[in-house]
């Protein structure tokens, strides 16, 4: 860091944004060089919430390690668990009952909406509007209540087990999801009134943090971040898992590549998730919610990889097995890490206030980046 300071030119100031800063939503440390209000360089420093989850997983059995992945991207914990379970099922060649598949997809999409709701509120709060945060939490709370009733927890559910789901859905589940959909549809117009249509908000977002499609690919961005630049990367469409092939939904693409495009991708994705839920909620097939599996799982020798689309982008699980009861090596590909790497490129030349908008639209969850 000393030579960093030596390299700066006249008038440059180095500021530490974080690890304790309201805009980083966690313990991310950004070392930014600014000249006046203009950003010249952003250097993310990681490691403040590193818990060595990958190493931890090596000492846990295949049933046990799934719950740890909830602690990475805690906003889409369910989808993380889903990826692990899919990877194990691929290795063990377990046929998951169709009822379990539908329940899993329903929960995935509910999680995605909950995650985007929180992002939407926090995004507006980063830009200085506090009220949308509470309005977003009203809808998110309804999803959390549904989760609590069926999975027993609100954030780190650990509902998915290899071969299916842990418990059958609660008898009230379908009715409450339908209530949520009608609540969401009655309130989604307010989002446009409060934030999307607002002239101040649009000026803060449009043309800010431009990321071209080529750059998005070369930085390895996935999820809404890349789709805002017009890169097709929805894993649900490209490499369908579970029952996504049979569902009608659109991959949202915006071509502008700025913060507003990324914002619009997420807002429109919520509507697509609602669409998926509407298709499934009345068509949950009867049957088992869990396939018969052995008490102790032993993955055959080999390498297994599975990717899913979380709320933030492509999440991958890579397991190397030696044939024992614990994995030999686990590697997670987390979307936040790659998306964060584009921040420096996007931020150069823009104002300090824009950095907050860019970090908001990247939808950073720090434990996901740091693991």
């Amino acid at each position, binding site marked *: 860091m000393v030579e960093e300071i030596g390299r700066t030119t006249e008038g440059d100031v180095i500021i530490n944004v974080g690890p304790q800063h309201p805009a980083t939503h966690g313990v991310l440390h950004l070392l930014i060089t600014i000249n006046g209000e203009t950003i010249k360089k952003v250097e993310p420093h990681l490691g403040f919430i590193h818990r060595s989850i990958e190493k931890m997983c090596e000492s846990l059995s295949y049933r046990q390690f799934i719950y740890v992945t909830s602690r990475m991207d805690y906003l889409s914990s369910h989808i993380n668990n889903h990826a692990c379970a899919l990877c194990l099922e691929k290795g063990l060649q377990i046929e998951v009952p169709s009822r379990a598949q539908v329940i899993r997809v329903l929960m995935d999409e509910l999680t995605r909406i909950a995650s985007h709701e929180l992002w939407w509120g926090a995004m507006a709060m980063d830009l200085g509007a506090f009220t949308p945060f509470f309005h977003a939490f009203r809808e998110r709370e309804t999803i959390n209540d549904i989760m609590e009733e069926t999975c027993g927890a609100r954030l780190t559910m650990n509902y998915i087990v290899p071969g299916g789901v842990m418990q059958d859905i609660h008898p009230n589940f379908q009715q409450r999801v339908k209530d949520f959909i009608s609540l969401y549809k009655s309130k989604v117009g307010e989002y446009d009134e409060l934030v999307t249509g*607002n002239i*101040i908000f649009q000026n803060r977002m449009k043309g800010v943090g431009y990321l071209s499609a080529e750059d998005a690919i070369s930085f390895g961005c996935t999820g809404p971040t890349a789709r805002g630049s017009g890169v097709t990367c929805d894993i649900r469409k490209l490499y369908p898992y579970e029952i996504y092939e049979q569902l009608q939904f659109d991959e949202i693409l915006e071509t502008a590549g700025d913060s507003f495009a990324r914002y619009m991708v997420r807002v429109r994705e919520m509507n697509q998730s609602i669409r998926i839920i509407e298709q499934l909620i009345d068509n949950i097939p009867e049957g088992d919610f869990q396939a018969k599996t052995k008490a102790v799982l032993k993955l055959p020798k080999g390498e297994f990889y599975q990717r899913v689309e979380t709320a933030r982008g492509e999440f991958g699980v890579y397991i190397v097995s030696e044939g024992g009861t614990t994995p030999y090596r686990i590697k997670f590909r987390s979307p936040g890490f790659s998306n964060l790497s584009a921040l420096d490129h996007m931020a150069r030349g823009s104002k300090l206030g824009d950095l907050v908008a860019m970090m908001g639209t990247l939808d950073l969850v720090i434990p996901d980046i740091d693991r």
Partner: protein
Amino acid sequence: MLSFSNISKSIDSGLRATFDATWTMVIEMVIAGVCVISLFAILGLVLVLMERKVSAWMQIRLGPNRVGPKGMLQSLADTVKLLVKEGMTPDGADKFLFNLAPFIAIIVAMLLMAPIAFAKDFQLWDMNIGVLYVSAVSSLMVISILMAGWASNNKYSLMGAMRSGAQIVSYELSAGLSILSIVVLTGSLNLNDIILSQANGWWIFKGHIPVMIAFIIFIIAVTAETNRAPFDLAEAESELTAGFHTEYSGMKFALFFLAEYVNVFIVCAIGATLFFGGWMPFHIGHWEGFNQVMDFIPSSVWFFGKTFFLIFLIMWFRWTFPRLRIDQLLNLEWKYLLPISMFNLLLVTAMAILGWYF
């Protein structure tokens, strides 16, 4: 009848009967000082509670409801907390300026209280250049912010102070121009004369669309001048943590906090005086009965009612809009507000010369 002017007159005559003229003045000054300070304290308590309740209801929350009946004493409890907190001075700070800055902020706010007419014939200082005095003194506020930002020895504070400097210097212009449009219509800089000129109707109604535009520009400009959201770039907690008062704690922070709220009160009082007729009651043309009922309401109630309506307006802005960026903030002023208010002033002048108002 019990009114502020009668009370002050009876105190004055009582004092004059017992003391000579010099002593009377000294005692009256002390009384006025005590009144201003207690008004400060009350305003701080009331406005903080009001802001918290307004924000809570807009955010579908309940707001403070534990301390005292319906949470009325919440801000009192907060004050006690701030009083007993340690006021720290960071290492490497310019100690003298660091400790001076909050007092400058509060002194400026106190000075601004002088020309405001709180009720009929109730004013600390009826000066003939009241409007000029207010716009001149209110720009001193930026000095305390710059001082705090510089003396804190903190990059965030400095950036907040610099932002605030750019902001207040620019927005002074359109605030001044929109005030000028009323001065043009009245032909006086005396706040009392301005109020009396609105006896047959407030300027916002008498002045047609140009005065409405002037009012909108005025409310935007004073929101920016008092560093309130959506123009709170000097604090901007998501960017600069807390801006110029990042390093302040305890009572020194509370003084900044208090100065912000008192400034909001003062600019709203000026706005109410200029555009809504100060303590003038609401009259409609020839409805004698209605007008008499309105006259029966005390003038101080009218004044505080109008002021608090404007304060609510500013709070309403704060809890609805996102924050502007610094370049957009300056663009808004120099590309939109200033040209519009200059053109508007021209319109108002033409209107005043041709007598196109009621």
